[in-house]
């Protein structure tokens, strides 16, 4: 009895079609920009913090047209003027915040006050510096004089 040949091919054409469609869709809808976020507490949430968490006064940073003012409540703030090219002195801000943080390492709160006219990029730069040294609970508020 003669053996009959049997075709054992798997038809890959539908599979390749499906893959091509999926790849095209995913590449068209892909977001190549890596995104992250900075958590900002609202004014109400910041003021509603439990009393024991507010034993240490928060660090305050004010962004004005002239420069940055860094300090604590009821203390004279340190003024960091803009650099010669008109930008905020971020390395000096980092040093000032590190000093305040080292005096109370458990401190996490930062009150950030921005004046009208401040660009969003400048606010994010200040937040980034603060978050980098551990002041991660940021509340963003308008500067009262604005």
């Amino acid at each position, binding site marked *: 009895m003669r053996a009959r040949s049997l075709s054992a091919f798997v038809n890959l054409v539908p599979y390749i079609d499906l893959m091509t469609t999926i790849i095209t869709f995913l590449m068209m809808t892909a977001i190549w920009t890596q995104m992250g976020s900075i958590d*900002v507490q609202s004014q109400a949430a910041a003021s509603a913090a439990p009393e024991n968490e507010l034993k240490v006064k928060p660090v305050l940073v004010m962004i004005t047209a002239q420069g940055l003012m860094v300090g604590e409540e009821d203390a004279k703030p340190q003024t960091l003027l803009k650099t010669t090219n008109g930008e905020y002195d971020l390395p000096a801000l980092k040093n000032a915040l590190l000093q305040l943080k080292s005096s109370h390492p458990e401190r996490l709160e930062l009150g950030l006050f921005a004046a009208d006219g401040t660009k969003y990029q400048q606010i994010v730069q200040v937040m980034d510096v603060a978050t980098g040294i551990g002041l991660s609970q940021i509340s963003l508020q308008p500067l009262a004089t604005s």
Partner: protein
Amino acid sequence: MAVQIRSVRQSKRFQAMKLLRYHRDRSVDMHINVTALVDMMTVLVIFLLMQFNVSGQILFISKDLRVPKAVHVLEIAKGPLIALTRAGDLYFEGQLTKTKLTAPTAANRWEIAELADALRASHMSDVVNVQIDQNVDYSLIKRVLHTCESAGYRRIHLSVGDGRQDRKI
């Protein structure tokens, strides 16, 4: 029964081609090996699917919106998305909500009514994602943040570009 791989799969038209003029009586195997192609596609699909769902949240960025970069960032959380462009156009979940947003004046309250209504209608959690162009003035930003706060969103996530690859500070 022996399994035999068929070597001739060409059509009659292919058989009639001049290519096979001198081999008409012999079978010619004209297979293209697609194994490498299938492997590559599978890997690519898996990679793209993992990228697609990296944080469980997709943020669409408008083409006229340039977000600033930051080094110390958190993962994006799930929540409604607000976008404010440089021109002052305000979007909620991709829909244009208000055009030419202006700075608050004495007659103009801080709260943006259209945005507040939309936020209250889709109140799921206390987290909201806010995308703002890097050149937008704080006088506009504070209106958006105030509106989010008044609508009951206590945690505001400011979306920024992940600048960990080009860190400066």
